[in-house]
């Protein structure tokens, strides 16, 4: 067991995950609310899970049981009060309404595609074409655009903090979690009516099959087939539309247990490019939007579940 922890940081031991997740949840809720009934409930769940994982350690094979365990407590943790991703949602709500930048205004007049200030359902149609910028933008690109044009904010610091770490929150991750959550339960409907939107989806598809860097990897190397694994890690098939692609597309941003952070698709693809031995892609670059647009096309019709909770 120690062997695979050592050799691949991506392969988290599922048994340990149980404990780790609950500690992460407890710590965050504890920190945010100074205890209370949620914390008590959590402690109860923690004891249950510790018992569950002890049983699991004896069981073989570990991967199958591990998957079941994850499922079991994904269900348990589905309670919004217990998903730490909701802390990001709450912080995002504050940031949305906070006056900032040279113009000292909030983001509340930002047009995310359905008119200034409209939040409900907008994430269900992003990325999309924005005529004012003559560009297809994902949520991050659009928010940066609004920060610069509407607020007159120098986004250098925001971009420097694009990915949160312990003790350092990310405005972008928080805002995206807040806005994504405003489409919770809605149907994801990819925006493909504008020629530039279709062009972006096609570029993204080409990038999905594009091999590069010292290992000759493409996204398709790892996500091109059903039921494949890298070490013990199951890999979603993102080469065709279907239930898998829908579930993936509908579940970002996600609270990543292994990182104790709420992450967006920008971070997920950054991490996949890392595994591809490519340089870090630029944040909010056209290529990431193209790939997201390609995934959006595959994920059309999904029911949005944001923030979700993942390894």
């Amino acid at each position, binding site marked *: 067991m120690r062997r695979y922890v050592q050799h691949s940081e991506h392969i988290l031991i599922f048994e340990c995950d149980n404990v780790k997740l609950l500690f992460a949840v407890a710590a965050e809720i504890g920190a945010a609310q100074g205890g209370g009934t949620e914390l008590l409930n959590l402690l109860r769940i923690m004891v249950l899970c510790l018992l569950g994982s002890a049983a699991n350690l004896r069981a073989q094979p570990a991967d199958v049981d591990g998957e079941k365990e994850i499922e079991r407590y994904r269900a348990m943790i589905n309670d919004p009060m217990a998903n730490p991703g909701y802390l990001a949602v709450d912080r995002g709500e504050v940031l949305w309404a906070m006056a900032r930048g040279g113009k000292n205004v909030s983001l509340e007049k930002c047009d995310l595609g359905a008119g200034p200030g409209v939040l409900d359902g907008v994430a269900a149609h992003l990325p999309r074409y924005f005529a004012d910028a003559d560009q297809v933008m994902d949520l991050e690109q659009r928010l940066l655009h609004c920060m610069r044009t509407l607020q007159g904010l120098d986004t250098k610091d925001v971009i420097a903090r694009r990915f949160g770490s312990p003790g350092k929150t990310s405005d972008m991750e928080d805002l995206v979690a807040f806005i994504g959550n405003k489409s919770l339960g809605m149907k994801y409907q990819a925006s493909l009516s504008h020629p530039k939107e279709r062009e972006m989806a096609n570029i993204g598809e080409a990038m999905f099959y*594009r091999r590069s860097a010292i290992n000759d990897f493409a996204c398709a190397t790892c996500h091109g087939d059903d039921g*494949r694994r890298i070490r013990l890690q199951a890999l979603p098939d993102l080469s065709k539309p279907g239930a898998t692609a829908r579930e993936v597309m509908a579940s970002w941003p996600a609270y990543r247990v292994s990182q104790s952070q709420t992450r967006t698709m920008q971070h997920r693809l950054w991490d996949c490019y890392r595994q591809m031995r490519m340089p870090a892609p*630029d944040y909010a670059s056209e290529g990431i939007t193209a790939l997201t647009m390609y995934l959006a096309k595959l994920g059309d019709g999904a029911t949005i579940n944001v923030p979700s909770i993942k390894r």
Partner: protein
Amino acid sequence: MVRIFFLACLLALPALAQTPDPARVEAVVAASFASAPAGWKSRVTQDALQEICSLTRNQPSAAQAEAITAAAKASVVLPPDSAIIGDWRNGEKIAQNGQGGQFSDAPGTVSGGNCYACHQMALSEISYGTLGPSLSKYGKLRDFELADARATFAKIFNPHVTLACSTMPRFGLNKVLTAQQIADVVAFLFDPASPVNTDTK
């Protein structure tokens, strides 16, 4: 005549919509990695093999495939027979090691082969991937023949020797592994004492 032309256009349209201009794709990729550090820029652009295998989605034409395998065979630098099979214990570590070459790695990190990411090898290791075929008992199934070990060295050096547009990395050609490291991995597969060949479970 005109009608046929229009028909042809109509048929061509969906195909056109699917395949964007490769130059446009490359421009988007280049722009998306614009701030890559100098030493990393070369990873963003493609070599000829990467380009063909990407555009054909790993289904090269017969002529392309022939050219790829021929070039791959010419690229392999084999050590003398005495150095084809190294130390299986080192080889096992290399097969386990998935580090190296990532922007998150400390500079100077020695790269592993990460074979277990894709292959089953020793049966006692349960954490193996399924992107490639099982290599369990690999040497034993080949009677530990030196000729097979030599071919395996070549396969790891440049997998396109036997399959054009293989999805396996070109470990030797791309200098991910040294000749010594490849020989050690070959030993992991071909040494009769290696758990790849001895493990019963």
